[in-house]
């Protein structure tokens, strides 16, 4: 650790700040003095009036030079020895010294010397550079005149030459191709692209590549990906119960905007205020979802206004950070400590975002908080085509699966025939299958030998897959004392019926109509199953009617009674589901037993059944939902067994179809998956456009107030919308609303908008911003490494008509960009962060690109663009562990959605995708514009063991074995081209071919191990390949995917 500190000092001493360890020739207020004052003094002697001590402030020259209450003067220009500031910073007295020990701040000897000299030189002040509009910058002269390829290089080289450094050589062609492809598309170059570039000898070969990449939809995706962090995009609301939302149509809007190279001023304007544009289109309204992507609570019991204020504050924070590079939230509770932003100005800015007619979310109910727009995704046409193609594809899969089913079906039938039927979970007390199919006698299968004649005509009809007795109005069966039910005994009746008439039809009864209808019946009345339990009708009996069922269709009906004597104890299930009931009589107090026989098909004499009845069974217990489901399954299986008992030739076509359908839907997981996929795809195609939360403006606007200490319930003075005084005023004629604010931001004279945007892009490409604190251009922010370059780029950007793609081209065409990053250890020690740009950028890929890269290398990457978020592999249980009531369950996908680009992954804020979070993807709870780049053992575990990477290694192996040539060396070379866009070195080949040989040996002797490895992941294994060889190549593929080089842009 000590070593580390020493090295940093050493590095500074050696190079970067070399000129500054001693004192600079010319002291610059902004560069040298303001950072010291800001960091050490402003907290008590700065912009915040409330915490200001002794009336002294150092951010305003007049005050700093004025006489203090004590009569002393803090700063006397030209006379450091007469300046109280110098006395105090030099004091050894703990009560006198500044900054005071309690501040935990100290000044270095160098800081003190700088302050002294600055005062001696006249204590000049200048406004903070970032608040002054960029000036036109002439290209500085350079010695190495043939190096620059464009303006960027003049600025970079001038600085290098001033430091006595030379730029690195241009990167090798393959390195450059991979670098620019990763930068502009987030994906590696394909072997074909590598070959094309290496064969293109024309002078503008590189430029052609850049143009191709910029025009690719992959480029739009890559840019959209970088926009999601700062727009704090997610698929859930965040906070406590973290319900789901559908904001993805806005993500599609962003992709589409980049794909059409929408000018950046329009890009900003539509996202901030698209709804306020003249004749705003649904797409322009959709764009404003930017302002509603923030976290929203739906916790029961929250105070709405408290959170509404938080949402507005989030919009302020996001807008200020993303477009202005300012930490405006520091002024929410008090005047800003470091920057000239007052609390009143904060609420002036707040007021722009305070007028959304937003309603709170209801606990676990609302998918979106109003206002919303139901606008289709701008990619809707393509999405629909994709869905239609998907559906056609799944249908084809389904047909194929059905065709392939003959053999496994026959095998399964054999096992059915050779195993005895399972014991029923609940045994009936009486059971009449009514499936004899011929003759005029029916039997109780629970009591062998018990049978009864059919009265009337015994005709047998089809019952789904079997037979059933037909009832024509004359048909019925009498069964004597087969069952005995009474009103204080629990029981259930289960039956399959096919009613054909709306007339009251009796399914079964044991009733004495002559004795006040004493007894019970199960009937169908007006198409509704109903049951009577009667001691004496109507004064002592109960009647319950269930929901209606469809006539001329088979239904499974269960009446379950708990023996309570109350109607509430009688439950109906139709086709396995409990259904609502209507109680029309509920006063049963006496017994319902009778001497009448049990009948099927009529009461004592009346209400005959019309239709078919089968599988009537009586139970001595009530059945619950699970029991009913089980019962239905058992009866279905019993039907299946009946068909299976007959040779195929003797079955009807319908029976054969039924049997196949049963097997496929119940027992073939692949078929089940296909059916599910089909259902989902069809539902998606039929779904209306999602409701996206967007901005709207209240009329009249909601009055904003200065909130004391930032508290929602502490309003102070009323505040009108206005922008901070340190920045330019709203353009003439601009309305004082979000649209006016957007116009103000994109005004060419605005000092921040273009610089902040250019700087962020620079960070994306080079790893650090020209202003390293990309999120803070204020006085606590870093001093630009190349201030003139930043201004020149900002100027180019604005004068190009905010051409974002043009700006990127300018950067990647520069000689600065094209330098080699292989500069040696000494260069890294000299300038660890590469701030001077004496070499090319080399840093680990962003989280999403680490994964996308592996998918692309393996050939797994799905190329669909846009649409709803997807659910790739994730370890089981992560959502349940943290969700309210364990209610949230991750919905694992199958098929292509497992391999979509990572920024389409469903983003749950309280539990972000672990494989991405491990590589520094943020939680998206707040706007973030600079990710950390850590290097941890958990990242190694992901690369080694996450099924994503193991499967990618196997697919890479398959790719290499089928397309990589005929020798191990050629194949290895191909693998390196895929993963690193370079040929394998001799040392690579030597190392990995040894591993390959050893692994092949190992897997040959342990085929089960090979199979285990090959079956990680959902994709099919190429059966034409030797498993041991494929497994060994998978091992090699994994090593290649895990290389530092593979996950690094260099």
């Amino acid at each position, binding site marked *: 650790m000590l070593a580390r500190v020493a090295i940093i000092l050493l590095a500074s001493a050696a190079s970067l700040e070399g000129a500054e360890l001693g004192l600079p020739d010319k002291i610059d207020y902004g560069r040298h003095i303001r950072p010291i004052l800001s960091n050490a003094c402003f907290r008590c002697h700065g912009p915040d009036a409330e915490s200001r001590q002794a009336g002294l402030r150092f951010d305003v020259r007049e005050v700093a030079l004025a006489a203090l209450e004590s009569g002393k003067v803090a700063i006397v220009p030209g006379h450091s020895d007469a300046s109280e500031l110098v006395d105090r910073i030099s004091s050894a007295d703990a009560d006198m010294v500044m900054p005071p020990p309690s501040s935990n701040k100290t000044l270095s000897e160098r800081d003190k010397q700088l302050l002294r000299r600055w005062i001696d030189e006249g204590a000049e002040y200048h406004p903070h550079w970032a608040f002054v509009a960029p000036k036109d910058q002439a290209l500085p002269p350079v010695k190495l005149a043939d190096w620059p390829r464009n303006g960027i290089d003049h600025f970079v080289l001038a600085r290098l030459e001033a430091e006595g450094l030379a730029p690195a050589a241009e990167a090798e062609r393959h390195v450059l191709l991979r670098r620019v492809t990763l930068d502009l598309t987030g994906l590696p170059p394909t072997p074909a692209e590598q070959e094309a570039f290496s064969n293109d000898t024309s002078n503008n070969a590189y430029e052609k590549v850049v143009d191709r990449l910029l025009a690719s939809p992959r480029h739009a995706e890559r840019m959209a990906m970088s926009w999601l962090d700062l727009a704090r995009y997610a698929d859930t609301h965040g906070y406590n119960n973290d319900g789901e939302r559908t904001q993805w149509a806005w993500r599609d809007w962003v992709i589409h905007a980049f794909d059409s190279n929408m000018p950046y001023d329009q890009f900003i304007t539509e996202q901030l205020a698209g709804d306020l544009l003249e004749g705003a289109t649904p797409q322009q309204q959709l764009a404003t979802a930017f302002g509603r992507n923030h976290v929203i609570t739906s916790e029961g019991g929250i105070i709405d206004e408290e959170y509404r204020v938080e949402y507005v504050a989030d919009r302020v924070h996001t807008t200020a950070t993303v477009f202005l590079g300012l930490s405006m939230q520091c002024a929410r509770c008090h005047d800003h400590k470091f920057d000239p932003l007052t609390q009143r100005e904060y609420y002036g800015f707040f007021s722009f975002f305070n007028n959304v007619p937003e309603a709170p979310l209801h606990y676990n109910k609302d998918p979106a908080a109003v206002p919303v727009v139901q606008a289709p995704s701008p990619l809707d046409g393509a999405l629909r085509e994709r869905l239609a193609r998907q559906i056609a594809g799944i249908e084809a899969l389904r047909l194929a699966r059905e065709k392939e089913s003959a053999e496994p079906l026959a095998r399964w039938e054999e096992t059915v025939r050779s195993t005895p039927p399972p014991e029923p979970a609940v045994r009936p007390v009486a059971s009449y299958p009514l499936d004899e199919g011929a003759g005029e006698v029916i039997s109780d299968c629970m009591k062998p030998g018990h049978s009864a004649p059919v009265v009337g005509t015994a005709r047998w009809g089809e019952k789904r897959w079997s037979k059933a007795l037909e009832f024509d109005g004359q048909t019925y069966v009498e069964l004597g004392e087969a069952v005995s039910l009474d009103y204080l005994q629990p029981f259930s009746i289960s039956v399959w019926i096919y009613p054909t008439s709306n007339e009251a039809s009796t399914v079964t009864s044991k009733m004495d109509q002559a004795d006040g209808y004493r007894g019970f019946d199960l009937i169908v009345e007006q198409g509704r199953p109903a049951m009577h339990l009667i001691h004496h009708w109507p004064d002592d009996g109960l009647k319950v009617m269930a929901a209606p069922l469809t006539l001329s269709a088979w239904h499974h009906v269960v009446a379950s009674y708990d023996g309570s004597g109350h109607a509430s104890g009688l439950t109906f299930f139709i086709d396995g589901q409990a259904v609502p009931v209507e109680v029309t009589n509920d006063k049963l107090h006496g017994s319902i037993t009778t001497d009448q026989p049990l009948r099927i098909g009529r009461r004592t004499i009346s209400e005959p059944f019309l239709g078919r009845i089968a599988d009537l069974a009586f139970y001595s217990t009530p059945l619950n939902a699970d029991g009913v489901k089980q019962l239905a399954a058992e009866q279905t299986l019993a039907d299946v067994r009946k068909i299976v008992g007959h040779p195929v030739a003797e079955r009807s076509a319908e029976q054969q179809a039924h049997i196949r359908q049963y097997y496929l839907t119940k027992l073939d997981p692949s078929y089940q998956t296909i059916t599910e996929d089909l259902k989902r795809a069809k539902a998606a195609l039929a779904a209306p456009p999602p409701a996206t939360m967007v901005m709207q403006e209240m009329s009249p606007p909601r009055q904003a107030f200065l909130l004391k200490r930032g508290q929602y319930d502490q309003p102070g003075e009323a505040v009108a919308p206005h922008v901070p005084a340190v920045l330019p005023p709203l353009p003439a004629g601009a309305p004082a609303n979000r649209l006016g604010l957007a116009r103000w931001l994109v005004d060419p004279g605005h000092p921040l908008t273009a610089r902040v945007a250019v700087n962020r892009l620079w960070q994306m490409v080079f790893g650090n911003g020209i202003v390293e604190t990309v999120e803070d251009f204020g006085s606590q922010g870093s001093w630009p490494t190349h201030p003139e370059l930043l201004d020149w780029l900002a100027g180019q950007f604005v004068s190009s008509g905010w051409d974002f793609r043009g700006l990127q081209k300018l950067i990647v065409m520069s000689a600065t960009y094209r330098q080699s990053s*292989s500069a040696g250890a000494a260069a890294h020690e000299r300038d660890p962060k590469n701030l001077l740009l004496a070499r090319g950028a080399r840093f680990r890929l962003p989280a999403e690109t680490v994964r996308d890269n592996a998918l692309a290398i393996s050939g797994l990457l799905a190329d669909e663009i846009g649409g709803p978020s997807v659910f790739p592999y994730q370890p089981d249980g992560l959502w349940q562990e943290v969700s309210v009531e364990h209610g949230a369950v991750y919905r694992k996908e199958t098929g292509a959605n497992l391999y979509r680009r990572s920024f389409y992954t469903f983003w749950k804020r309280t539990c972000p995708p672990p*494989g991405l979070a491990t590589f520094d993807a943020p939680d998206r709870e707040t706007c973030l514009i600079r990710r950390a780049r*850590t290097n941890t053992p958990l990242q190694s575990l992901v690369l080694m063991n996450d099924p994503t990477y193991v499967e990618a290694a196997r697919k890479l192996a398959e790719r290499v074995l089928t397309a990589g040539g005929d020798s191990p060396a050629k194949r290895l070379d191909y693998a390196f081209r895929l993963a690193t866009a370079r040929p394998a070195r001799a040392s690579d080949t030597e*190392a990995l071919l040894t591993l390959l040989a050893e692994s092949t040996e190992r897997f040959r002797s342990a085929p089960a191990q090979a199979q285990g490895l090959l079956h990680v992941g959902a994709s099919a294994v190429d059966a034409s390949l030797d498993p041991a060889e494929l497994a060994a190549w998978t091992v090699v593929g994994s090593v290649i995917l895990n290389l530092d080089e593979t996950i690094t842009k260099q």
Partner: protein
Amino acid sequence: MDPRIELGRLLTRRHFFGRTASGLGAAALASLLGSDAAAESPAAESGAPGAVPAGLASLPHFAPKAKRVIYLFQSGGPSQLEMFDDKPLVREKHGSELPESIRMGQRLTGMTSGQKSFPVIGSKFKFAQHGQCGMSVSELLPYTAKVVDDLCLVRSMHTEAINHDPAITFIQTGSQQPGRPSLGAWLSYGLGSANADLPTFVVMISQGSGKDSNQGLLERLWGSGFLPSSHQGVKLRSSGDAVLYLSDPAGIDRGLRRQMLDRLAQLNQRQFDETGDPEIVTRIAQFELAYRMQMSVPELTDLSSESPAVFDLYGPDVRRPGTFAANCLLARRLVERGVRFIQLYHRGWDNHGTLPSNLPLQCRDVDQPQAALITDLKQRGLLEDTLIVWGGEFGRTVYGQGGLQDDYGRDHHGRCFSMWLAGGGIKPGVVHGTTDDFSYNIVDQPVHIHDLNATILHCLGIDHTRLTFRFQGRDFRLTDVEGKIVRPILV
């Protein structure tokens, strides 16, 4: 473990390292030794990568009393009235309206703010004095009652938040709104790791037996906020891989993994030779750490070496992975291995209704294991430098939610609640703070969330005003601009 010694071991063990050890370069070494030190220099505030989180050079600020923390967090808001803060007067006045002089019109959650009547509910559970210190504890905690002489009970905790999300985010990160680092992340950042083979900050979650609603947990509670993401808590899970992606895939055994890593290191080393980028050396070391973690974590979670006496001590639940009891035993094993911050979450304390039927189940989950943890640590001489913290995000109201009922419920209450601390740096056998006769307001020695966090940091040798991180121009700290150390409870 000293990372430099560790690095030396790494460098000498493999032949291909031997070749380049001398050429490794100082910058590479620095990258490997951990960069958080670099964050102290303003030039490197984003936190460059590092192999073993080494902590800040300036820490500890003074000699620590505790080297590590076990935080037994009870998510949902346990009722102080049934467990730690006996109110005989409330039993006497059971069913009568909460006096307006006590309530003083303070804000209520949206769940009870519409109630017309606020009858006070006397606890159904009896309290008795225990131990030499005579601490009053409820009959729901018979095992805890036996270790009261080791506890410091704070009856005067308070928070501003009255809903779960802001309250739990507040107590764990020092801010009601998302975006700040959690306590454990601050400690990881400040103190670094004492065991290279295990994460510095470990999180374990258990499910309560009470049937009341289970509030959600949020990754931000153990997140790193604006600190580098390497400081976020690592979940130790009871199902699947104990640490995500820990297990080698099917078909790859330890021997093959070793071979793969050797080849990987060889190729990475070659790339370092060419580019000179010290990140590559760090990357090599991280794969080695991952490899060792693959062995050290299963060894950690394998309880077979524990004696029957230990199992008896923690109670029958300890044999079921994922229970609070099992997590307590794992916490002790983590402590023995030098893990800095161990955060347990036990869910299910949100007793809005049916408190008398569900709270006893929750108490049974935690009572024996937490007492066992104290006894176990004490027997091993670890309690003196391990700080244990117990509590939830707030307490519960003296009045009944939904009025007067037999199986009553209580709403959230942030104005006073009870927590206890034990071990390193904390005075044992004392009660701190007093609430009024209704356990509604604090009458003496209030302890705010920021005060608690300042005190926890103090026990670890950290001045809470000096553990800062600059983000967007501001030096942030766990206790924001507040926090007073609770001196009376310190040894």
